[in-house]
Every structure is written in C-alpha cells, then in structure tokens.
C-alpha cells in the first residue's frame, strides 16, 4: 500500500499514457465488432504494420537524432500519415481477402473468427520472415522535455503528445460517426444490416470504411508507440491487442467512447495494481478488473452500443 501512495502520481501519468494507446487500438476492435459482430484478431497485426511503416519512414527521412521546432512537427506528421496509410490499407486488404469472401457465402461467425486468427498468425510470420525476428529500434525523434510534475509523476512532452493525440482522434472519430452520412450508414448497419440495405446503405462500402477507420486509429497508435517506446518487433501487437480488446469489452463493445475509457481504465488499473502487488501481477490485475466489471455491469462501463449513439 505504501508503494501505491508514493508512486501514485507516476502511476497515474504512466497509466493514462499507456491507456491512451490501448484506447486507440481498442477503437478498431470496437468499430469492427459493432458493425460486423466480428472480433478482428488480426487488428493487432494492423498495429504492428503501422509501427514498421513508421520505422521505414524514419529511415527514409534519414532521421538519426532529435529534431525540434518545425522539422519536428513535419517529421511527426509524416510518420503519423505513413502509419495511418499503411495500417488502413492493410486493414482494407485484410477485409477484402479474409472476411468478405466468408460474408458473401453467409459463413458462420465462427468461420470468420478462425479466419481472423489465421490472418493474425500469417501477418506476424510474414513480417518476421521478411524483416527478421530481431527487435528493431528507432532513433529518438522527439526531445523528451519535462513539461510539468505532479507529485512524483513527471509529465513529459512524449507522454502529453500520446494522451492528447488519442483524445483528439477519438473526438474526430466520434464526430465522423455521429455527424456524417457515412457515419450514419455505419450506425445503421450496426443496428440492423438487412433494413439498412433496404434503406439504400451500401453495406460493402460501410464495412470497408469501418475497417479503414479502425486501421487509421491503429496507425495513429502505432506512430505514437514508435515515438514513445522506440522499438518494434514482429510480435509487438500481441499483448497490446489482447489488452486493447479487453479495454473495448470493458468500456462496452461497440461503444467508441467506451473504448477509450476502457483503455485508460486498464492502463491505470495495471499501474496502480503493479505498484501495490508488483509488476508480475500487472496482467492478472487487468483481467480480474474486467471480470469484476462484467459481473456487475455486463454491457461494460458505458454500455451503449454503436447503433444507439446519439446523432
């Protein structure tokens, strides 16, 4: 308990930072589930592909040391755009190859799930064979300046960037889903696909856009992850994917705001729990938390699903 108090603020700051990344990845899981009722297990590899895109962009730009000012913003923007492009295209291709043929044939959801798991392994091994299994590291791009401290928690520019970006992307995504026509189509498909078709919604396009958006969010998460943790590997998506999916369920699967909230909650719970019981219990704590919430609130923290989002 003593540790919880002495490390409270640092746990909070770090919990929110890592939670923001979980939340961004969770958005992808929750969107796809809300529309297709499919758990896209390969989403973790979509994230991994984004990190590799960030790596290659930095190599292509020949960035080997810290940047500042306008160059920094330029580099960061390019990295984010490259990751988003890579992840969203990968997601769309994945949908086209792994899920749409099954949808066409009216295959059971179990078949789609197995396809998702298979796609996940395939992408991992593809990248491992092509780019090696060793860890790939990134140069430090952003200077790690301390912005301010609360207690023993230090908020650095890196952490602030991650948190603020995640929040911003969630807001943008939320606006898109609630305010645009395409967003309405997504919500309609989530509510009732057959009636949506009758109302003139192009289901194929909706599904494609859903995957694209989920992939874009994963791409942003990948860029932030790369800037902050400065390393990637072919299997980097695995644990993150599991935690992000847990976050999506925790917040209410199909609920966008719930995904981000779930991510933050998991990030905080992990770090608080680790300061009390030790880091080896980190994962146990996240999942026990999930079980408790689902026991007392089965629809998740925010409950609402994608189809019932307010317009």
């Amino acid at each position: 308990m003593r540790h919880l108090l002495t490390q409270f603020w640092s746990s909070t700051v770090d919990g929110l930072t890592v939670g923001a990344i979980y939340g961004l990845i969770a958005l992808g899981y929750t969107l796809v589930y809300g529309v297709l009722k499919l758990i896209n297990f390969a989403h973790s590899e979509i994230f991994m592909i984004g990190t590799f895109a960030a790596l290659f962009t930095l190599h292509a730009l020949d960035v080997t040391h810290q940047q500042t000012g306008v160059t920094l913003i330029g580099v960061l923007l390019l990295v984010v755009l490259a990751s988003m492009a890579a992840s969203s295209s990968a997601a769309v291709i994945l949908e086209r190859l792994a899920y749409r043929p099954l949808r066409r044939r009216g295959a059971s959801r179990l078949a789609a799930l197995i396809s998702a798991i298979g796609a996940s392994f395939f992408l991992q091994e593809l990248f491992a064979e092509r780019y090696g299994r060793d860890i790939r590291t990134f140069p430090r791009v952003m200077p790690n300046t301390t912005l301010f401290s609360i207690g023993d928690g230090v908020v650095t520019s890196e952490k602030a960037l991650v948190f603020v970006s995640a929040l911003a992307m969630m807001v943008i995504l939320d606006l898109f889903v609630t305010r645009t026509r395409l967003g309405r189509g997504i919500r309609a498909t989530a509510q009732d696909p057959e009636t949506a078709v009758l109302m003139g919604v192009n289901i194929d396009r909706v599904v494609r856009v859903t995957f694209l958006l989920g992939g874009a969010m994963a791409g942003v998460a990948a860029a932030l992850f790369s800037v902050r943790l400065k390393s990637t590997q072919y299997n980097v998506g695995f644990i993150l994917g599991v935690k992000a999916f847990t976050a999506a369920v925790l917040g209410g699967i199909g609920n966008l705001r719930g995904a981000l909230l779930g991510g933050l909650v998991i990030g905080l719970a992990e770090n608080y729990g680790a300061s009390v019981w030790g880091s080896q219990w980190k994962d146990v704590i996240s999942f026990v938390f999930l079980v408790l919430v689902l026991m007392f609130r089965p629809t998740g923290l925010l409950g609402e699903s994608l189809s019932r989002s307010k317009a």
Partner: protein
Amino acid sequence: MSRMSKVPVRAFAAFTVVAVVAAACGSSSKSSNGGSSGATVKVGFFGALTGPNSPQLGINIANGVQLAIDQYNAKGKSPKVQYVPYDSQGDPSLAPAQANKVVSDGTVAVVGPAFSGESKAVDPIFEQAGVVSVTPSATNATLQTNGWKFWHRIVATDDFQGPAEVKWLTKKLGAKKVGVIDDKSDYGKGLADTVRQGLSSAGVQVVSDSIDPKGSDFSSTVNNMHSANVDGIMYGGYYADLTRLMQQLRSAGVNAPIVSDDGAADNKLLAPPEDKETNVYATCACLIATADPAASAFVTAYKAQFNNAEPGTYSTEGYDAANVILDAIGHGNSTAKAINTYIGAPSFSFKGLSKTITFDSKGEVPGGAVDIYQGKGGVLVLLGEVDKLVP
C-alpha cells in the same frame, strides 16, 4: 433407432484402427535411435531459430555447429555427418514437440538445448530416449542435479555468474541499494534469485521487480526503480528486453549502472537509441570470438560461410560443443550410447577454442571463469575475468 446404433460401431472401428496404427508408429520410432541410417550420422542443433531472441542466441550457435560439421565432412571421413536443425523458439512449451521429432528422426546427438527453460522441459525426453545432448549455453545451475546421464554442458553455470555479478555490483560499483529485475523465465529469474541472495548476504538493500518481456511498456517497473532511488540495477534476462527496459529507465532519469548476464551479452543490446550507453555491463561465461585474437581463424571461416556475418554470443561454444560430438564420431562411435560413453570417459579431453573440455560425473566442465563486458561506442568491449579484476 437402427441408424443411431450404426454410428457408435463405426466410430469404435475407426478408433481401433487409429489406435493400432498409432501404436505401430510409436513402437517403430523407439528402435530408430540405435545408430546411423545408411552411412550418415545425424547431429542436430536444438534451440531458437525463430522467435524474438533467435538471431543472437540461436542462429549464432546453430551457425557454429553447422560450420563444425561442414569442416568435419570436408575431411572425407566416414560416416558422414548430417546437420539437422530443430527450432524450439527457445520456448519451453514448444520445445517438447521438437524433442519428440529428434527422437523419431534418429538423431544421435544434439548441440543444445540452448536455453535453460527449454532444457528443463525436454532433457527428460532426451534422457529417456538416450539422445546425447551437449549444451553450449543453458546456464541454469539446477540442470545438473537431475542425474541425467546423456546430458553435458560446456559453460560455467549461473552458480558462477550470479556471484560474479554480485561481486561487480558491490565491490567494483559500490552499490548500496540495488534493483534486481528479472524476466520471469527459468533462466532470468534463476539468475536474479541467485543475485538477490548474494546481495542480501553482502548487506545490500534489494528492490525486486520483474517485467513481462512480451509486453512493451515497463513503466511500473521504471517508476518503482525511480522512487526507490537505486544506485545499481541487475537484470536477469535477454538482450531484446533489456535494450527496451534500458531505454525506458534512462528516459525516466534512472541512471544507475546496469549489470546483466550472458543473455544480454550481445552487441544488439546497444542498438540505437542505446548506442551511447556506457553504464551497462554484461557478464558471460562465454568467449565472444571477435574479441579474442586466438579465435581469428574461426572468425574468418564463420564470416566466409555465413555471408560476412560475425560470430556472436556462444558461437564459439556451439562450435566447440559440435566438435566434441564430432571427435567421438571420428573415433568410430556412431550410436548415441557409444558417443555418450566416449565423451563421458574421465580420460576424454578435447581442446576447444573457448576452453579444454572434459566432463565430470555430472556432465559439467570443472572450473568457472566468468568474463565481463562493458558497453562502449555501441559495442560490448571485453574488460576481463571478474575474478581477476575484482579479487
């Protein structure tokens, strides 16, 4: 009613057929470890050829083994030796399936298992089937207590490495409060526990923690180290995780010197952004060949065969382990039992690159020199033997 009674009968018949076939397959594989099929003897490498630690702690060793076998075959002796790689990914849950494959392939001897965790899982299988195993790198000390007759090791155990690290931390670096972090593996935790005990006996305060190497965010461990204000850190684990942990520790302002082990003793530990790091040390009961002029012929041959790649951690030991087995084969021993008797004899002595090899009754090489390396200019530089530097 009649339709239902047909199904169980058919199922039972099918089950019987499968069971008989499986039994037949099982019994035929037990007799295939007697010796060579035709004129070739199979010698394998067992370790991580894929997986996150494979490039530096699996492929390095496998290459040393392959080089030794190719050099042996080039001498034109008979029987010829066939190199068979077995990829366990260094994972104790995946290794047993590969071990069963070793047995069914009729491989008489393997260099490996490379990691301690997988050794615990598969050495019983090798022992039962009578496959010779010579490990160049599994350093967990408890492996020798199992009474295995077919198991041999040619490097000093963590019983020597642990105290060497304690010595370095307390006597050379003068640390009074040390954070000891492990990666929860048999190897990392085993070594870290040895260090924890050694430090406590030396009156040093220990702050324990552990990380999950599959994860990427170690902030709770970093915060723990930071708030405890440690002046030294020991990490039990592998280079792929330490390089990330190091980056996060330094970012958070934890600048204490880090001492790690042979799993981290590789130049990849100092890949950018950690290439400027000099406050990191790694012990190893191994000889990194590029740091020793006496091994230059080996380095040249290695580079020539493997596309200019340099030998890495335990390449030398892998080479030596393979040559021990090849020495036995060259003296006319081609069955697992004969090889085992030959190398286990007290009179057996083989001059390898890293050391002179002779096995005691437990399968170990007596003596336990541990070297220490330091990060300088993006590579690990050999400082010397710990016992000689810190008397």
